[in-house]
């Protein structure tokens, strides 16, 4: 048995208000952290570790955040793996605690993407959250290639070509998550979505249309990581950290078979091994859904269906709350809010705490798989949580 399995726990979770909030990302994260500490029955004085991330242009993010919280800490850093960072924060927290470097680590992420992309017409057109200084100046912009949507859409095109996947298959992902968001009062999206509405919406970067793309959101999330032993003495039912792993396709998203096989395949294999579990044991999945196709690719890579069979899997209704694999049960980044994977962790933990009413609770949820994906379709992190 892996020595770290079931040794550490999530002791509290918190969110900020989500959507079109109009607060800066650091303020939102401060709110989410306070909510997570309150839920655990802890104060900032109990925190001796901080692993966080925000917008890419905030230098030494963890320093700015700790100063806001008014604390010195033994262990802190900010991360740079895009949407794979937030699970990696939990992994680092476990490693730091196990090494005796800290006892109680707060992990969190905040962004203000709705505000940033709605300041003026230029910001709206650019739609790009990467600072100008970090954007490529050759081998991309001269062709009219700008950023994240097409990075992921290339994979969707290739998947459709190799396996006969259709846009209607992708629609089933968006529609299932929207249905979940309608059960979540915190979610940014409030209106139902049908397959026909998905198909008739405007195209963004084909094959992706409007509803294949995650939201621009203001929002933050945070969790408290500590030993299971300590977590058992706190206010809420702890959530077991059973397994984790990362794998990064750092040869590049256009290299090898990376458009079709994400880092989830190798990260998932090792996370399952650490947890002593397999895909058949997962009761709910919280999958990083920057774009619909990425959900399908990861479902295949995590072994819920074979490579190329993701279309049939999502068409079966598997992702719905009453389906074989209730997925992104808060609405995900396509319909709750895009907080770069942090809310996937929060939702996975809350399903295992069993805090929801029957309209939203995954029945008898014992095991949750959470994924983080990012850095332009390259970095991947996996987290397997269990009911304590």
């Amino acid at each position, binding site marked *: 048995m892996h020595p770290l399995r079931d040794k550490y726990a999530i002791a509290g979770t918190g969110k900020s208000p989500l959507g079109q909030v109009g607060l800066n990302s650091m303020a939102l994260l401060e709110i989410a952290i306070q909510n997570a500490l309150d839920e655990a029955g802890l104060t900032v004085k109990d925190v001796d570790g901080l692993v966080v991330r925000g917008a890419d242009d905030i230098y030494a993010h963890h320093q700015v955040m700790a100063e806001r919280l008014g604390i010195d800490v033994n262990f802190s850093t900010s991360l740079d793996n895009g949407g794979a960072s937030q699970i990696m924060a939990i992994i680092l927290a476990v490693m730091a605690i196990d090494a005796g470097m800290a006892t109680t680590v707060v992990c969190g992420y905040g962004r203000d993407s709705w505000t940033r992309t709605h300041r003026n017409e230029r910001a709206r*057109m*650019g*739609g*790009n959250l990467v600072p100008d200084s970090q954007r490529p*100046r*050759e*081998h*991309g*912009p*001269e*062709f*009219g*290639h*700008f*950023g994240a*949507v*097409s990075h992921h*859409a*290339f*994979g969707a*095109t*290739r998947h459709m*070509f*190799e396996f006969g996947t259709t846009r209607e298959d992708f629609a089933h992902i968006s529609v299932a998550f929207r249905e979940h968001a309608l059960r979540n009062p915190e979610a940014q999206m409030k209106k139902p979505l049908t397959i026909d509405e998905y198909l008739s919406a*405007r*195209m*963004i*970067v*084909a*094959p*992706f249309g409007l509803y294949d793309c995650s939201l621009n959101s203001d929002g933050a999330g945070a969790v408290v990581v500590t030993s299971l032993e300590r977590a058992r003495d706190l206010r809420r039912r702890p959530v077991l950290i059973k397994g984790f792993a990362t794998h990064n396709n750092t040869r590049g998203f*256009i*290299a090898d078979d990376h*458009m079709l096989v994400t880092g989830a395949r190798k990260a998932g294999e090792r996370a399952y091994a650490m947890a002593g579990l397999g895909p058949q044991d997962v009761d709910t999945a919280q999958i990083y859904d920057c774009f619909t196709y990425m959900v399908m690719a990861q479902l295949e890579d995590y072994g819920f269906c074979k490579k190329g069979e993701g279309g049939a899997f999502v068409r079966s209704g598997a992702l719905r709350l009453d389906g074989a694999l209730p997925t992104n049960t808060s609405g995900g980044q396509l319909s709750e809010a895009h907080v770069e994977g942090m809310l996937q962790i929060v939702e996975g933990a809350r399903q295992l705490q069993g805090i929801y009413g029957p309209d939203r609770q995954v029945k008898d949820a014992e095991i949750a798989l959470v994924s983080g994906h990012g850095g332009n379709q390259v970095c991947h992190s996996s987290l397997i949580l269990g009911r304590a």
Partner: protein
Amino acid sequence: MLEYKKPIPVPSDESKPYWDGLHEHKLLMPKCSACGGHWFPPTQYCTHCRSKDWAWSQVSGKGKVFSFVVYHRVYHPGFVDEVPYAVAVIELEEGPRMLSNVVGVPAEQLVCDMPVEIVFDDVVEGVTVPKFKPTAL
């Protein structure tokens, strides 16, 4: 001549020979003298075998569309009159993959693995952008 409003590529210290080659209507790629492999974009060592012994070498300019997307949304004012336009990942016969545009074919007729060949687009004085068109059968 109309004002060119799209982004002008800015060569790096490592990619300057690539852009100089394009200006002469030659597609150059790094080629390893030890293992014979090609790669792109340029690095200090061969990405296949880590040899330092390599040189810029002209390649065929032939390849295939590995994948593509069609931009409908405008992200830059220089593309207002271009949408919908295709951006593709081209896999060259010699192995490297590169981003480019596919021209000379309507976006809806594009398909993965379509054979293509390079066209040199002299966009402004001194700057040539590599694009691809379907290979004539």
